[in-house]
């Protein structure tokens, strides 16, 4: 139980939880490598529903098999679900207080800042790896980032289509790339 970082209360929800999981499993304990974590995160983008649940399942499976999956999910959800219900119930009682409204509005931009920080930390290893493979791979990676963001900005419901298209683009680009080393 104490080994699970998922239990740690995170003030800005998912992104902070993601940072805590990454810090604990990748940086502090080394149970998951940076590349594995980035790969898991990329993989769960295509899974329906909550990314962190899928990520937790992958990390749990890697570190503890089926039991690890159960314990990881328990660690993630056992505290957070009841706390969310209690927070909502409590909020219903104070929702008409003026400063409460202001505080609620202030949390959103703070979360965006944390999100940008974490996403850049996750993107850098991927972009570095692409650059190491050559200018073509780097160009494809950067273009994919920009085009994906643009499409989702215009059409938020197109996330799954964008991810599938990016996967196909990556596969097609890999065929064009010269074979270097045995990293398969």
């Amino acid at each position, binding site marked *: 139980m104490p080994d699970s970082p998922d239990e*740690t209360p995170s003030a800005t*929800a*998912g992104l902070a*939880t993601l940072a805590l999981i990454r810090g604990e499993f990748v940086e502090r304990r080394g149970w998951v490598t940076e590349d594995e974590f980035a790969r898991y995160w990329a993989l769960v983008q295509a899974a329906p*529903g*909550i990314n962190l649940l899928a990520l937790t399942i992958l990390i749990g499976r890697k570190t503890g098999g089926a039991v690890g999956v159960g314990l990881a999910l328990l660690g*993630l959800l056992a505290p957070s679900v009841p706390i969310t*219900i209690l927070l909502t119930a409590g909020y219903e009682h104070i929702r008409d207080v003026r400063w409460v409204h202001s505080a*609620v509005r202030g949390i959103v931009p703070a979360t965006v800042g944390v999100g940008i920080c974490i996403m850049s930390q996750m993107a850098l290893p991927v972009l570095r790896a692409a650059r190491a493979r050559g200018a073509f791979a780097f160009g494809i990676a950067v273009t994919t980032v920009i085009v994906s963001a643009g499409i989702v900005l215009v059409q938020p419901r197109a*996330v799954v289509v964008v991810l599938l298209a990016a996967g196909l683009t990556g596969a097609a680009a890999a065929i064009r790339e010269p074979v270097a080393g045995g990293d398969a």
Partner: protein
Amino acid sequence: MTSAEYFWTFLEASLFSTGGTGNLPSLHADLIANHAATNQQFAEALAIGQMSPGPTGLWVIGLGYLTRGL
């Protein structure tokens, strides 16, 4: 909106989206159109989701509570 329709709205939105708030556009379109939620309730539920620990996707718990109670 019946309870079955309400349940299906959430199920469909989560099934065809990714990420903690990927279901937001679909839920917003369906629940607002059916007068099952207000923009204010969406904003409050999202803010509660940001404040509470764990996945951001748990914001739907707040939305469910605010729109239909326990």
